């Protein structure tokens, strides 16, 4: 479903070239739950941005659902993001001026769904995260865990092939974090692939595969082997 061959990223300024990611190969199959771990500044977010088509890579090839995305236009990449990828962020990234319904509906507005279908998808997504009865509320009226659930509903509303989660529990206490992890596992169990960046090794261990990034170098280990911090 996701295949990267010799993908690398170099940031170039006037005077300095920085190798953010060394060339790497990676393949994630449909339905897999993959964790990405590594110290701050190691390149985790850069990797996730490349995987999410938010950032270009400087070398290699990236195939998403067997489609080479290297030379896609901005509009084509946007459509692919909208249809195939769901994003979950550490700080939820909900728009405070919009209520929950409108927040969840936002990605659907960039697709040719009818208003009726958008409404049904929003309600279904909010139902999955247990917040259907609060669709008229605003983000600031919710707890952190609830806000992250809304963000997950937003990611799910478009029925993506896989979710990219950037430290989804980073701003939550342990109880809320457990709830979110449980929800992600349920989503994964229903067939959606998940690629999750986390600092929490216990959470990382709940994935089937763990990718470690250190100084821009990707290495992979099975979850059961545990990653040394």
């Amino acid at each position, binding site marked *: 479903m996701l295949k990267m061959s010799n993908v690398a990223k170099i940031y170039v300024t006037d005077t300095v070239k920085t190798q953010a990611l060394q060339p790497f190969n990676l393949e994630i199959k449909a339905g897999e739950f993959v964790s990405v771990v590594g110290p701050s500044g190691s390149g985790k977010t850069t990797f996730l941005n490349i995987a999410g088509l938010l*950032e270009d890579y400087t070398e290699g090839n990236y195939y998403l659902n067997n489609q080479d995305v290297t030379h896609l236009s*901005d509009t084509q990449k946007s459509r692919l993001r909208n249809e195939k990828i769901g*994003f979950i*962020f*550490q700080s*939820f*990234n909900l728009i405070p001026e919009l209520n929950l319904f409108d927040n969840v509906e*936002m*990605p659907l507005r960039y*697709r040719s769904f009818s208003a009726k279908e958008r409404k049904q998808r929003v309600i279904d997504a909010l139902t999955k995260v247990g917040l259907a009865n609060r669709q008229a509320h605003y983000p600031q009226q919710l707890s952190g865990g609830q806000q992250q659930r809304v963000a997950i509903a937003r990611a799910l509303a478009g029925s993506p092939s896989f979710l990219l989660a950037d430290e989804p529990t980073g701003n939550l206490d342990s109880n809320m974090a457990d709830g979110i992890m449980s929800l992600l596992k349920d989503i994964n169990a229903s067939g959606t692939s998940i690629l999750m960046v986390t600092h929490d090794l216990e959470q990382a261990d709940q994935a089937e595969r763990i990718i470690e990034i250190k100084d821009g170098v990707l290495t992979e280990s099975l979850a059961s082997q545990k990653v040394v911090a």
Partner: protein
Amino acid sequence: MIATIAIGIAATMVTYTVNYMMTQDPVPSKSDRLFTVHLSSWDPNMSYKLKDGKEDIPIYLTYQDATNLYADKKADKQTIISFHKAMVRAGEQPSGMATMTYLRPTTHEFFSMLEVPFLYGSPWGIEDDSGGNPVVVLSKKKNQQLFRGENSLGKEVLIGGLIYRVVGVLDDWTPLPRFYTTRSEAYTEPRGVFIPFQSSVNNNWLSGTDGSVYCWGEVNFVDLESVKSSECVWLFYWIELSSPKKRDDYLAYINNYAQEQRSMGRFQREQMNRLMDVSEYIEYNEVIKEDGNIAVWLAVAFLIACLLNSMSLMMTKFHGKGSEVGLRRAVGASKINIACQFSCETVIVGLCGGIIGLMLAQLGLHITAQVYSHLHAELMEMNFELMILTVVLSVLSSSIFGLYPIYRACQIQPSSHLKSL
């Protein structure tokens, strides 16, 4: 942002409205077919005046020339326009209610040539002109003053102590600029009382009590016959031709007339006889001053300053929305989607600015009308087209000045803003 645009739009539109209304074509259906006639009848020993360093001729005719040309009736229509002022009251009003009123002695063609609308009745007839009958046409405002706006046809009006009978009442009529006399009257209301020119002659109302009479040679102002046969110029003379192409023919006619007069000892100066159509006469009279255009350009400069300020505010606002842009891009919005979203915002900002600016402009025009109460009130009134223009200008200008902020917003890298929402 909206307030900035609104203030800029209001200032621009107040200035533009006054300038626009001042430069309207007062008779668009025939402004190229109406001509004023000017003759070189002045003193052979001294020029009438200099204009732009060159000799100029009077814009008025002598009584004898005006009546001669009028009697010839060589144009399709022609009219003599004079002036006088007298105490006026309705016959049924007590004498103490008489007010000093500016009169407009003219001929019956005046009304059809200038497309004057009538509320009641009609212009007086040819026989009233030739006989100088005591008939009067009142403006709507004067009819309101004298007869409370009622149908006053047949009623008596005392003008200078003489009884006149009302034959017509005008509807609202506000030619802007009021081109057919002098520059000083261009933006004042039309006179309220119209009487046959011959009637004013019969009444010996030839004195220039409220207008200019320029003379050379011998004249005795006490003796009517002396004034009538003098070289004093004081009458406006306008003609209407069925086609602008007939202009040359009519000019040839007045040149021939001048030659005839020359052979009789008059018109001894170089002949500079001329016809001027409405726009030429307005330009000659300098009714529309260059100052007005400069004021409009200054107002436009102020608007641009406001728009630049607004653009800066937009930049700040859109930059502040960088994380929202990043989020929208992440969930599938293309740059085009982002551009559309912010374009909608700039249009709405422009629309709101335009509507508020329109209200401010109305307020500004109202205040201007109060300050310049001696000018015609319609100068300070926006017509429907100007109202639409105000809003369209606001939307258009805010959209144009929003292009760069929108472009910058579209360049936002989503990956660099997603952690800051």
